[in-house]
Structures are given as C-alpha cells and as structure tokens.
C-alpha cells in the first residue's frame, strides 16, 4: 500500500465546527443536503458529518460511487448518503467559503502556518526561483513552510497576501513545492509567529479571496490541502 506521509507540525487547517453548525442553521438543517465530496472539501468528512448530524442534517451527498464507498462507514447512524454532482453554490454556503457573497455564513476552515526563518533583504534583492519578486525597499522576509506540494497554489506567489500580526504581507516570489516567503516590510517576524491566510474571524480574507487571486473556482481551494496539512477541530460541538 502507499505511504501517506503527515508533514511537520508548523501548519494548521483549523476547522470550526461551530461555524459549520451556524452555516447549517442559516441554510435550514431540515431542507439541506451537505456535500462531503473530497473529504468534505478538505475539512474532514468524518467530523464534519458527525457535527452536521448533531445539528439536524440527515442527508449527505458525494460526487461518485467510489467516494460513497469510502465514507459510508464513517457516517452517523440514521443519515442517508446520495451520489450526485457538486452544487458549488451549496458547498460555498455550507463551508463558508465566501461570506461576502453568502451573507450570514462564516468560514469553517482557517489556514495558517508558523514562520520557520526570517531574513533581512536589501532593496531590489530577488526572491525565490527566477527572482520574479524584488524587495521594494530594505526590509524583512519570513519563510513559511507551505508550498504547492501542500495544495498551496504556486500562482499565489506575487498575487496573494498573508496576514502577520494583523498586517497584510505580500507573498514574495514564486511559491516553491514546500515553502514560500512573505515580505513583512521594515519589521522582522519572529520564528514561530503565526501567519494566517484565510478564514480568520477578524479578517475578511476568505477562500474566495485566494480563488479570485488566480481566477480559480472557489470550491477548488480547500480540497487541495487534503491530508498534507494537519487539521485541528475547534468548538467541541460533537460529544466525543
């Protein structure tokens, strides 16, 4: 069988089950079908299904018979699982991928990582492969261990922003397979500082923001993180 390697501890996809339950309440638990395709769009099908069932959802769906067979065992008792095409509108709403357009919804996934190293750069210094980004002035870079091998889209380099200490920081240069750099300007980050990408309660940056940065569909962003980024579940909605 294949070895599915868990990467190191410096990254986190934090899943808010309370936000999921809140989104379900907005949609109406009785009438909704929750799509669990692609491991619940990268949120973790088992925990998502359990929390949703406790919030009154009884109907789930996935996109194929193969995926249905894979998750059948982890579904809560008394619920049904169908097979059907992905309804992007419903998925965006359920997982709070675009709260700006779906009023009242909240992001279920919050993506963050910890600074691995910092580096001082002079004005005009090139960063990462091809030197596609150059420092606008003397300042500091922070190296973050998230790369396209983790589902962090390579094209976000020079196109997206991260949040560090509440400040928006450019993604400086090409995203490599396992890391990228952010420019923190005149201030230096400290190794271990948290860098947040989307889904933070205090920010309006969402998965949709990252999708728009490269013209990708909003529901394509979170599934890519899959099992490469450790998930933590908050709010203890489920009893276990």
């Amino acid at each position, binding site marked *: 069988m294949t070895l599915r390697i868990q990467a190191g501890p410096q990254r986190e996809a934090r899943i808010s089950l309370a936000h999921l339950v809140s989104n379900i309440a907005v949609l109406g638990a009785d009438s909704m079908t929750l799509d669990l395709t692609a491991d619940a769009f990268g949120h973790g099908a088992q925990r998502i299904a359990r929390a949703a069932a406790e919030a009154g959802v009884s109907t789930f769906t996935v996109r194929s018979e193969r995926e249905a067979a894979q998750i059948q065992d982890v579904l809560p008792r008394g619920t049904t699982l169908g097979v059907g095409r992905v309804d992007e509108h419903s998925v965006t709403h359920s997982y709070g991928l675009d709260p700006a357009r779906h009023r009242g919804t909240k992001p279920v996934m919050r993506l963050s990582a910890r600074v691995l190293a910092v580096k001082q750069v002079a004005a005009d210094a090139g960063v990462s492969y091809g030197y596609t980004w150059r420092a606008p002035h003397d300042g500091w870079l922070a190296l973050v261990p998230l790369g396209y091998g983790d589902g962090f889209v390579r094209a976000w380099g020079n196109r997206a922003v991260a949040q560090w200490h509440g400040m928006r920081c450019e993604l400086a240069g090409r995203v490599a397979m396992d890391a990228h750099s952010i420019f923190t300007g005149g201030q230096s980050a400290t*190794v271990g500082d948290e860098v947040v990408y989307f889904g933070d309660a205090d920010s309006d940056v969402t998965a949709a923001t990252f999708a728009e940065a490269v013209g990708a569909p909003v529901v394509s962003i979170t599934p890519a993180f899959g099992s490469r980024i450790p998930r933590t579940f908050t709010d203890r909605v489920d009893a276990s």
Partner: protein
Amino acid sequence: MRVIIDTGAYRRNLAVLSARLDPAQLMAVVKDDAYGHGALQMVRVARECGVSAFAVLDITTGVSLRASGVLGDAIAFAWLFDAADDFASAIEHEIDLGVSNVEVLDAIAAATSLVENSGHDALRLPVRVHLKIDSGLHRNGAAPHEWAALITRAKHWQDEGRIEVVGVWTHIGEASAEDDDTSRNVFESAVDQSRGVGLNPTLRHLAASAASFERVDFRYDLARVGGFTYGIGPGSGIGPADLGLEAVMSAHASVVRVGDVDGQSVAVLDCGYLDGLPAWRLASDGSNEELPKTGYDVVIAGVRCPVLSVEADTMSVALRETASPVQVGDEAVVFGSHLRREPVLQEWADALGTVGEEIAVRVGLRAEREYRES
C-alpha cells in the same frame, strides 16, 4: 482519476541521469510522497538501481522512510525545520540534517545530549550536518555575513564530537546564467571559508534537476534531482523527450458522456479539479492577460482532443472525426508519456502557466495509484 506509475520508466531515468552526473552522485528527491508518485515505492526502486542518497525534506518524512526499512543504509537528507523540531528522533533514525543557522545547530547539539542520556543504543554520533549558504535565493540558508558565525559554531560542535560537517550546500535561483554564476561564486567562497576554519565538507551540493543536467561545473560532489527522475521537463517547451527521459506518471479517466455542444462534438470525462487538475490558467510570464481556452490536450483512442473546460468533477474535451467514434466507457489519457504519443505534463504546465511538478503532486497525492514495470 487513476494514475499509473511506471517504475520501469523511473529506473531508466535514474540510469540516464546517474550516467550523466557521474562522477557526481545523484541524490533522488522523494519529498512530497515522491512528487505524488509514492515515496515507499520510488525509494525501493531507486535503491535497486544503486541510488544511495535521498532528499526527504523534513524529519517526519525521513523518520517514516527510515523506519519502513526501504532506505537501508542510504543517506536521508532533511532540511525544512526550525530549532523546535524533533532532533532526537532525527538522530535516532540517522537523518542527515541541512542547517542554516546557529540556533538549529545548538538545538541539534542539545538533542545529542538528550539522546545520549536516555541510553538509546541506536545513537550514532556525530550527527551528519550539511551547512547551507544563501547564495541569492533569499529563502533559507545563512546569509554570507552570517556564514563565519555558523561555521565557527559548527567547528565547535564538531570538536566536541557532537556533529560532523559532511556537506556545504545551497539552492540557486535559475533566473539567468549570470545570476547562477554569481550564486556559484558565493557558494565556492563559503566552501573555502569552511575549510579555512578546519571543516572538511566532502559533499558539496548546489544543483537541482536543470542545472545539474546542463552544467558540468555545477555538479560538485552531489546533485539533488527530483523532477527529472520522474520525467518531468523543466517547461517553456522543453519536455522529457528533449532530455532523453520519459514520464513516470500517467493519469487516466473515462468518457462518461458524448454529445454535441453548439455543433462541436464533445466528450465529458470523469475527472476535474477536485482530482487536483488545475482550475486556473495564467500566462507563464505572470501577467493576468486573458488566454485562449485551449492549449492542452488529452488522448482518447490515440487521438488528441483539446480540453475545453475543467469543472469540479468533470472535464470537457473536443472530439475530432475518427475512424471509430468515441464511446462512453472509453479510456482517456489526461497526461502520460511522449513514447506513447500522449500529452506530457510539461505541455499542460506550459499552457497553464505552472510547472509539471505542481500538477503531478496535486493529482498524484489524491488519485488511486497503480504500479507497473514497463
């Protein structure tokens, strides 16, 4: 979607590359589950082909591979960590460590004491360390002004019997030949300085796939080769065929519908961006200009079919007149090997404004994998 991993192609690529790099040693890069090809299987094959050094990225991956037994006594080289990582585990599993700063060096030295005091009999001191100089990429690596402090500290821990500096390394930007030459000069100077303080790095490594393939003077003692071993071309028109390599991964889907859309005969395949296929399309120069919709193909029954759109779980392709009409259930090769006249990853990557590695790893980590030896 299903991917087929051709271990025969991997063997042939390793043979081509090892011969080309000789006498420099090839370090096979197997991070990110071997770029989505499956690290256990790829390491097993590479060991049979005589490869004895592997780049594993982080301690967790190195420990998993060492513990699985496939590595044997081969080198496992990890470098992505901070001073808080699990160095005790790395030491017990004999992972070579790539170090960029004094804090990490001190943490490794502290971990040797911990492991020693725990009486772990697997402990083999000194810990093998490769010191990294930043030669211009500005990611990790010690900046040139920090280098003297790093090698002095390393010499101290080496004299204490805690570590042995076996290597000096860097990562180059490949922005231009001139920039790479500048990086090479920084690297050479760093090696000289390390010798000046009494270190003896016998593994000097600077180059990855492209630079080690093209430039003899960039090979030194060892080259870290990832993409090329999997037959992934560097892009901008250069594919595996131009390098004497062949694709290891091919991706396969099925035709689920055939019909007419606006007078165009179209087939719908059962794979889409939820399978990892990129759902964006960007110019390779980084501009956001509007691009034509097509530009990459799949193959059905030996005929190339331009991709019209990639949706969540389906993909539409244009059909041309063929002798035998395409039917539901037919197999489509989404990308594969030029030797079978299939589109290669580099064609997709060039059209989408990315690199083949990104597509391979996105698809390979999620798909069902099947291994074949051709």
